[in-house]
């Protein structure tokens, strides 16, 4: 029993605008997701790579004033798979290579540690976002209120964006700030002023398509475990298919053997052609991981200017569009069942 039962009373306050309803779904979704202890652990873990990459920023900036550090940085740059010209520049004139090295380090941060952690975080956060509502018929409560299916999907997508921003955008921006703070040269600000914008853009390139696919997996079924399975399958199948086709393509072009032997096997090809054939194959388009990587590479200004990027962008755009359409359709069709 309540301490002071007032019975039913009317309510005559002013209601908020219909336009911010998606924000309520988003904030509640974020609060709800934070209750998962596994998510909290993964979020903490996701900041560890930022510390490691931060150290490389420090080493690089030190190599500008301390030439003895340059050979170490050159090894790092070569290991990161950047161009031989950049590795050369790191030794001869590191200051002129600053923008490219910083961009490469941030891209590596985006592409490898954070991409793997993103798979885990999004699996924890997104897979139950819609599937749980489908299972518990929460959609009847949502849509008996002034809420459109689009606002609902936007609110749910924002939950995924928020967590992706926490593990990718925010650490990358902090990494950039730490890089500035650790640099002994004030000119670093002028050399790298555009990087925060590129970080935000590269995050958007990652977050929008990934969230749409994640929500599509969640809307696919009312069973969260199937949603998790479809989420990982989406990436694994794309990635494995790519590697199968890549190896087959290399076999066709250069014959068997290891990478060095394959390079030697490239009959009548220049070094650039061989490098091109090794690093840019048409089969990348079947792997979501590689497609995202190429577009992010383009955003950081590291994608070769003479190679087309439009087909990767088209794939991302279409995947996003189809996924969001599918999510909306699944929600609406449940209502009409």
């Amino acid at each position: 029993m309540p301490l002071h039962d007032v019975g039913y009373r009317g309510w005559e306050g002013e209601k908020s605008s219909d336009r911010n309803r998606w924000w309520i779904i988003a904030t509640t979704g974020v609060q709800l997701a934070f209750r998962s202890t596994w998510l909290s652990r993964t979020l903490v873990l996701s900041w560890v790579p930022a510390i490691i990459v931060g150290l490389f920023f420090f080493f690089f900036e030190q190599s500008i004033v301390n030439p003895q550090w340059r050979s170490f940085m050159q090894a790092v740059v070569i290991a990161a798979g950047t161009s031989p010209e950049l590795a050369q520049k790191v030794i001869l004139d590191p200051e002129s290579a600053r923008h490219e090295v910083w961009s490469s380090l941030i891209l590596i941060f985006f592409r490898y540690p954070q991409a793997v952690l993103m798979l885990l975080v999004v699996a924890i956060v997104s897979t139950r976002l819609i599937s749980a509502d489908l299972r518990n018929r929460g959609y009847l409560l949502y849509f008996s209120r002034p809420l459109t299916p689009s606002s609902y999907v936007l609110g749910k997508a924002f939950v995924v964006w928020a967590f992706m921003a926490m593990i990718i955008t925010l650490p990358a921006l902090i990494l950039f700030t730490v890089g500035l703070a650790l640099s002994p040269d004030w000119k670093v600000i002028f050399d790298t002023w555009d990087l925060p914008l590129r970080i935000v853009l590269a995050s958007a390139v990652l977050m929008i398509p990934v969230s749409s696919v994640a929500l599509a997996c969640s809307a696919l079924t009312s069973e969260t475990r199937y949603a998790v399975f479809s989420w990982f399958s989406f990436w694994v199948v794309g990635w494995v298919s790519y590697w199968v086709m890549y190896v087959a393509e290399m076999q066709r072009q250069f014959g068997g053997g290891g990478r060095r032997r394959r390079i030697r096997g490239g009959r009548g090809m220049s070094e650039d052609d061989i490098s091109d054939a090794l690093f840019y194959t048409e089969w990348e388009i079947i792997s979501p991981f590689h497609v995202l990587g190429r577009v992010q590479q383009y955003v950081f200004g590291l994608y070769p200017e003479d190679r087309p990027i439009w087909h990767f962008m088209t794939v991302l755009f279409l995947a996003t569009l189809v996924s969001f359409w599918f999510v909306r359709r699944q929600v609406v069709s449940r209502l009409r069942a």
Partner: protein
Amino acid sequence: MTAKKIIQLEGLTKRYGSRMALNNITLDIEPGVSGLLGPNGCGKSTMIKSVLGLLKIQAGSVRVMGYQLPHELRKIRDVVGYLPEDDSFIAGLSGIECVTYMAKLSGLPGAEALRRSHEVMDFADIGQERYRNVETYSTGMRQKLKFAQAIVHDPELLILDEPTSGLDPEQRTSMLRKINNLATQHGKSVLICTHILHDVRTVCEHIVIMSKGEIRLKDTLENLSRPSTSGVFVRVEARTPATVEDKYPDATNFLGSLRATNVEAELREKGSVWVSNASGDSTRQIWQAASAANVFIQQLTPAKNSLEELFFNTVQEAERATA
């Protein structure tokens, strides 16, 4: 002056593939508490979902509280509170969080949404359980929770789909009392969709009976309860029964005495007589006949239309017509 209609349907048609769920329904529902009755699968829930704009209709027009669908859908959802029949909840939230969340989605500002949620949860008889996760709630608790979320934004019209399902008798009475309170004390209009006739008889002023996707009957409960014949049911008791079994005697003597005074009557079960076309004089004649037959009158009840009878007759007629 005619009362403002809360729901106006005109030629409402909804098909699921080749199956006609709602067949050209034209219906006006007046303010107050209305009961939408019908057997399972007759189209009640489809009609409610159409009214809320959850379903796309094939033809017809829907107007709720003066707002036209689909153009003013948001306004309709602003003024309507809906309690779905299905078990619906937001997983992971506690009861209070769930109702607050729904209040915010209806436009109540943050702190006010929380205050109001506590208030309606008190009203819905949800005590400390409100702090528990909704997934741990019993069916009855979930029903109360759905009721709380339906009224949290103080809607003008409540659409309650099977509001008493899953409640024990005490809770059921309490729920009906609350619905009645909302209607009589706070001017809410309520549309109750149910097949529990007792609930309808307890709170409803208007009755709509649906069958096979069509409206079969619509009237006030008062009119429907008015007897279609002017008969009286009389039950007599022996003055000095020798044993308990003899308490209700064969009423043949009583029937004979009645017929002797030109009253039309017939025997029913043991000790009971049905007096047809009873008038004011008949009552006096019944008492006289009882005295002559040496029996007490234990019960004298004027004829009444039973809602159950009316419901079954209407539904059966509809089925015969369709066949």
